[in-house]
């Protein structure tokens, strides 16, 4: 169209131009002066809207971070091989219960101590700790390696199922409990809650101790019982 401008276009330009208000009728300076307050208002409104949007986004990000902080289910505490204690952290929403086998509930030095009974070739072997479950390992133990000796006169080798006396600490996410086991009786030595958790001592008898740690959302439970002369700890997380 630009290339085809002809007299008709000039006539149209003149005719349409005559329909528009004259330039001098439109006072830009006066209009601009009258428009100033509205312009400032428009800019202020836009800034407020932008700031509000930014604050909203920030709030969403902070809320998201807080939610992630409260549910560290995706975190897995990977332990070094030689580290002796902490259980693997399991997602708090999953309920897990780990039973520790009787024969391994107490740390016993790995050294196998053969005991020779005079005049007999009977050897008693203590169980190793190698097959312990990952979730409920006792933490510390006062060494009380009392190898059980086969009574005199008995031949052959046997494996004990009793727990030697000693002090054991059980650790859960919500806290830790230290229990002494001696003469077939349980004694609660200490109970310590993790930050944010409250302690609830449910049972404290010679044959069973149960402590719960709760922070309102998650609950850790440590229960230790004496069964057939051996400790039966149970640590769960809900």
């Amino acid at each position, binding site marked *: 169209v630009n290339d085809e401008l002809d007299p008709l276009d000039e006539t*149209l330009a003149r005719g349409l131009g005559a*329909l528009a*208000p004259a330039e001098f009728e439109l006072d*830009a300076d006066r209009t601009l002066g009258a428009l100033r307050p509205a*312009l400032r208002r428009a800019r202020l409104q836009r800034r407020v809207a932008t700031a509000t949007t930014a604050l909203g986004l920030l709030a969403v990000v902070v809320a998201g971070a807080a939610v992630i902080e409260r549910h560290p289910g995706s975190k897995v505490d990977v332990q070094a091989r030689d580290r002796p204690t902490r259980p693997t952290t399991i997602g708090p929403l999953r309920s897990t219960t780990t039973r520790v086998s009787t024969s391994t509930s107490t740390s016993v030095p790995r050294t196998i101590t053969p005991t020779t009974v005079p005049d007999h070739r009977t050897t008693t072997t203590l169980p190793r700790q190698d097959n312990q479950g990952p979730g409920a390992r006792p933490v510390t133990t006062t060494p009380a390696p009392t190898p059980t000796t086969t009574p005199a006169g008995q031949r052959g080798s046997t494996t004990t199922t009793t727990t030697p006396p000693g002090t054991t600490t059980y650790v859960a996410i919500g806290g830790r409990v230290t229990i002494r086991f001696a003469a077939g009786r349980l004694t609660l030595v200490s109970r310590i809650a993790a930050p944010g958790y409250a302690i609830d001592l449910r049972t404290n008898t010679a044959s069973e101790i149960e402590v719960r740690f709760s922070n309102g959302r998650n609950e850790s439970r440590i229960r230790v019982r004496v069964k057939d002369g051996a400790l039966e700890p149970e640590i769960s997380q809900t």
Partner: protein
Amino acid sequence: MGDMLDAAGRDPDRPADFDDTFRRWWAPMVRSLTVASGDSEVAADCVQDAFMRAYARWRRVSRLDDPPGWIRHVAVNRLRDHFRKTTRGRSAFERLDARAITTSPEPAPPSDLAALLAQLPPQQRIAAALFYVEDLDVHQVANAMQLSDGAVKYHLHAARQTLRGALEAQS
């Protein structure tokens, strides 16, 4: 490079000044949109609204290649909104079989060209007004209307054909 000025008379390396832009482009935009809408008040409202939007985000708009083009585009969109509203209102009246009660005095009878212009579709009216009144080239009209150059040429051609008949009948 302060002496290198563009067609609008400004240094292309320097962000545009709002007041200068307003003084330079306010009247031409109002004139062309008055022809497109047939109502100077509506045209002034559309252009004013476009300048207010530009002022609110001037830091960004001033750095565009063509700030007046951005403002014109917003004003044309506002005018299209106005056309849409008017059409909807008219349709509603027709559906209700109602008559609008006019309390304002009757406007002066339009010229033949104005009457013919009013019968053109909005796209042709806007294209013709921007091209003939504001003296923009096809590409600038296309930018303002968010159309391709070819579509603008088509609308201009159609408008010319219609208006040519009126002008030839007059002469």
